[in-house]
């Protein structure tokens, strides 16, 4: 006999699909089948079942080998590291639940650490732009029900958010959009002819690194002012045509991704895209939304914000919260040589940071909390495997549009494994003892 669990939340990307069905063995120990998820989500659920999984903490030894240790020993190393460090960095938080993030914040506060999430390398610059000019946005259901103009700017949901288009943005038939895809016009802006661009009614193949100029040109076009013949590789006429398509809709949305956040211009690209959105609200209704990557990077920003006041790049070293990306942001902290200990959880900086920001991690006391083997675990002194969040434990997460969804536990973790939250609580309690003794 098997059991079918419905309304399961997929812990992969910021789309946070919550209609997954998972079939598990009768004893709830084995996950057998995954329905409705995309190919990446399916892999994520199934990988938790792999037989070669690491189930106990491991310390990296002098000779390069790894030695299995107990969770208690791992707690001790972590707490001692944080108690001694003068500027520890607690990084990641995007692939874990808000409950664990909250405990992490207590630890950060006690150890007067810097804490940051993966917005550092995905939508951190979007947050800077939002702080500069705001964000007219909406929930994904609004797009499904109302939107007739969809713009994907520097993002490729066909690859990065595979079910986004079918659930929310292109295909669904909503309340005012009964014809689904037929009622929508799709514009894609990307230097490549991506698989998303191939579906578009209009593709603006922007010259790489010139998004800021193209966005400015659109704003000029809305106002009917003079434009150069070609901007960012796009003829002025085509820009005016795109501007007219945007203005003529009833409800439009710009989705943007790392194509703009990580490209020259960075926060200013988003700033200008938000300005475009604001301008369009003089003619019709328009929204803009970042395509958040990790399934709970948004939640990490939310928890940081309500507890410390800032969504990422938080520096608590002076005993109170400060924030200024460029100074308090992870990549700068690492490459400038500002920190002396690193705890990574729910992310893989080893794979996703520029190598110059990874090298310092290998040289300092470091802990990597991750169910997987990763480049980060490979360069950290201590690797603490934990239960898969969203599969072997539940907990609250926030979708890319900030809608909170409580993840479901579908199977038991391997015998004796801790969750992120359980491990962090042990670290917190031990750190408290160390601080009180000091």
């Amino acid at each position, binding site marked *: 006999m098997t059991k079918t669990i419905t309304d399961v939340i997929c812990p*992969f990307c910021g789309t946070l699909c919550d209609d997954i069905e998972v079939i598990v063995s009768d004893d709830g120990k084995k996950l057998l089948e995954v329905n409705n998820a995309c*190919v*990446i989500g399916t*892999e*994520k659920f199934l*990988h938790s079942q*792999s037989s070669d999984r690491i189930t106990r903490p491991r310390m990296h*030894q*002098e000779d*390069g*080998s790894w030695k299995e240790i107990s969770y208690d020993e791992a707690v001790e190393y972590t707490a001692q590291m944080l108690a001694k460090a003068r500027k520890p960095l607690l990084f990641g938080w995007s692939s874990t639940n808000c409950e664990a993030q909250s405990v992490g914040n207590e630890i950060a506060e006690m150890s007067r650490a810097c804490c940051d999430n993966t917005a*550092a*390398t995905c939508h*951190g*610059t979007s947050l*800077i732009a939002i702080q500069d000019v705001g964000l007219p946005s909406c929930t994904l259901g609004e797009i499904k029900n109302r939107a007739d103009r969809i713009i994907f700017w520097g993002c*490729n949901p*066909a*690859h*990065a958010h*595979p079910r986004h288009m079918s659930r929310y943005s292109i295909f669904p038939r909503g309340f005012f959009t009964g014809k689904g895809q037929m009622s929508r016009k799709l514009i894609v802006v990307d*230097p*490549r*002819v991506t*698989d998303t*661009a191939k579906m578009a009614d209009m593709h603006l*193949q922007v010259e*790489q*690194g010139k998004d800021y100029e193209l966005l400015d040109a659109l704003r000029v076009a809305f106002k009917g002012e003079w434009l150069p013949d070609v901007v960012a590789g796009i003829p002025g006429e085509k820009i005016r045509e795109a501007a007219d398509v945007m203005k003529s809709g009833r409800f439009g949305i710009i989705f943007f991704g*790392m*194509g703009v*956040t*990580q*490209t020259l211009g960075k*926060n200013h690209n988003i700033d200008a895209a938000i300005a475009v959105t604001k301008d369009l609200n003089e003619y019709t209704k328009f929204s803009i939304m970042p395509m958040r990557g990790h399934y709970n990077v948004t939640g990490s920003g939310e928890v940081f914000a309500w507890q410390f006041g800032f969504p990422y*790049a938080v520096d608590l070293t002076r005993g109170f919260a400060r924030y200024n*990306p*460029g*100074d308090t*942001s992870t*990549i*700068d902290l690492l*490459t400038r040589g500002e920190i002396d200990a690193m705890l990574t959880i729910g992310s*893989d900086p*080893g*794979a*996703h*940071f*520029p*190598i110059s*920001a*990874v*090298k310092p991690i*290998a040289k300092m006391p470091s802990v990597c909390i991750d169910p*997987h*083997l*990763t*480049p980060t675990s*490979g*360069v950290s002194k201590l690797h603490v495997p934990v239960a898969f969040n969203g599969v072997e434990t539940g907990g609250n997460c926030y979708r890319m549009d900030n809608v909170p969804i409580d993840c479901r536990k579908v199977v038991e973790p391997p015998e004796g494994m801790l969750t992120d939250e359980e491990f962090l609580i042990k670290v917190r309690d031990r750190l408290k003892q160390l601080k009180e003794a000091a």
Partner: protein
Amino acid sequence: MTKSITINLISGRTIQQGVAIEGGKEKANYRTAAGIIELDPTDLKKLGAWKNTNVRVTSPYGSVVVKATETTQGPHPGVAFIPMGPWANSIIDPNTYSTGMPTFKGTPVTLEVAANEPILLGIELVQKLCGVKTA
């Protein structure tokens, strides 16, 4: 003299890379998915490389060997694409312009054929670049 070309490198997600990271970064599949550089056919020609040839990609920030493949999301002459991961991150521009964000997209790199040089596995590559001792 081996032929080399200069090209503008960007990195980003692909669905294969997404599947591979969830399947295990220690596995060869990850290298197959992300240890590649997607090139426009015209640039492959300029480089004088067949598709699926190993190439060395070098920037002011590092150098890495990956497999050159023909892009499926083109044409994009003058632009090369390495899926996000340790291979791309060995060479991208870490300059944050004091925003916290490295310049993952838009690093000028040179390419040369390196048919006989091995492509390292993901974890192996990072450990090697960081000078981490492995057993």
